[in-house]
């Protein structure tokens, strides 16, 4: 048996920790930044130029013109409005529905296990399959939505849902909600399950009704989980692209052009890399601010 000897020139424990930490973190950082650092810097530089995609070496320095162009452009603000609408409605509905589902499962009704298992399926379906599926459901002539509403007598003739800007956006949101609610529901349900039963029982004994029990006991204890789910989903929703690309391609009449889709149009359809880069950084700024706000909230909760 060897007794660890103290080496004469051993590092202090702190130095050891730092050294170990350095080597352990290094591979991860190398991969992440090795791959993305250059593209990020490149995009940043591009945003101050007017560079066409056919000759993507940064050229045509124009300072802040691209940024100012978008900030003063109604097309940009319309996209921001649409993205905010998408995010707020989407995440809001997911939160409410997710909370409802979590509470429902928590109440352990008959079949709750099957329900919890089933929730996984919409979440695990790939985004593009989800998009293709809903696009077919919304089909103007043969879709299930039209068929169902017509047979239930809710509409008297088929409608081209995806051809009307307002309904198109809302139906894309529905597709996104269906796909993402399970994530929130499962997080919240897991958190609910950690609330000690005694707390709830004590409250019931004290005469608190369902509403009071929810707001006074469960909700406060769930706040960390809710915030985690909110942060993740909000950032994801703000950057939404794939599902728009699959279901509506930004149509009709730009009705579903979100800020990421606008970046795609700028870079790929119009070939203006400088503009696309500026948009990217504007989006990143928005997203970063939002995320920081949330994280501030999160950590203040943690400290409490």
């Amino acid at each position, binding site marked *: 048996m060897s007794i660890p000897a103290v080496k004469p020139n051993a590092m202090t424990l702190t130095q050891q*920790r730092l050294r170990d930490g350095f080597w352990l973190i290094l591979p991860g950082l190398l991969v992440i930044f090795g791959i993305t650092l250059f593209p990020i810097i490149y995009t940043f530089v591009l945003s101050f130029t007017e560079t066409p995609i056919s000759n993507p070496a940064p050229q045509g320095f124009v300072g802040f013109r691209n940024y100012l162009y978008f900030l003063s452009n109604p097309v940009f603000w319309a996209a921001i409005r649409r993205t905010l609408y998408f995010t707020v409605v989407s995440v809001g509905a997911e939160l409410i529905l997710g909370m409802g589902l979590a509470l429902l499962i928590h109440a352990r009704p*008959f079949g709750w296990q099957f329900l919890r298992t089933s929730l996984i399926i919409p979440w695990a379906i*790939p985004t*593009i399959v989800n998009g293709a599926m809903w696009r077919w459901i919304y089909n103007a002539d043969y879709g299930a939505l039209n068929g169902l509403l017509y047979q239930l007598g809710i509409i008297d003739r088929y409608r081209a849902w995806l051809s009307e800007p307002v309904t198109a956006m809302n139906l894309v949101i529905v597709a996104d909600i269906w796909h993402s609610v399970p994530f929130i529901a499962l*997080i919240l*349900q897991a958190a609910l399950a950690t609330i000690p039963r005694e707390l709830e029982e004590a409250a019931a004994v004290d005469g608190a009704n369902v509403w009071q029990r929810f707001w006074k006991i469960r909700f406060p204890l769930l706040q960390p989980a809710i915030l985690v789910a909110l942060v993740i989903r909000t950032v994801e929703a703000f950057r939404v692209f*794939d599902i728009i690309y699959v279901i509506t391609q930004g149509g009709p009449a730009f009705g579903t052009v979100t800020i990421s889709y606008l970046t795609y149009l700028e870079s790929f359809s119009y070939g203006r890399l400088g503009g696309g880069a500026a948009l990217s950084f504007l989006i990143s700024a928005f997203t970063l601010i939002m995320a920081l706000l949330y*994280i501030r909230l999160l950590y203040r*909760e943690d400290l409490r």
Partner: protein
Amino acid sequence: MNTSRQIGSKVLYFLLTLLALLVIYAPIAWLFLASISTRADLLATPPRWIPEHPTLKNYLDILVPGTAVSEVARTFKITLGNSLLVALTTTVISLVIGSLAAYALARLRLPFRNTVFFGVLSVRMIPEISLVIPLYIIAARLSILNKPIVLILTYLSFALPFTIWMLTTFFETVPEELEDAALIDGSSRLNTLFRVVIPVAAPGIISTALFTFLLAWDEFFFALIFTSTVAAKTVPVAIAEFTGRYAVDITAMMTGGILAALPPVLLALIFQRFIVSGLSAGAVKG
């Protein structure tokens, strides 16, 4: 509480459960029904909720293709294989590298922990669209376009921040005493990581692996731009290709969709225990 109220609420909850299940399964059922329909069945107005002539032809076209079938259908199986390769490799590498970093961030009380943590997360703020062109240029120069490696590297850069974040949270839930005991016994840090921390945090690791796999399997736009032949084409790209210039091959697309959804859904169902336990650890700790 009197019994009628109890029964009442039980019935209510059960009905709500049924409603929820209906909302979950109805679209999936529609997807499945489309995949076993002929085109004639699909195009009926009002829609035939049950196809008149259900057929497995669509599946055969993809799984055992004859000659009269589109190129996309014939190569679909290969794209499934590509997706599997890319997603698995990304997950494994991501877990290995991520565990190392997560352990350091969770345990070593490093002074720069928060900086690294948030720096790594903030990389995810950049919309992925903007990284496509520069990464495309680099990949072209390194001659790795249209090879699985380019997708693996790209997905790693997306997945790692997420993996590191999740694993850090899980490692933090492992009681320190266990590790301290091992360290005192002379084990090195790395040894402790593998012998002690990982086994205890296993549920969280599995759920992280699942999330990472789904992320890689799901990814569409980069795969679309970076791949062009079956050498590296993944399943989301293949599904998008069922759309022609004017015609959309709906039955094939829905069938492809079911096949593309099977691996992630099956994996998620098999490991669902871990999803829940993983999420609960994450939720409680934040």
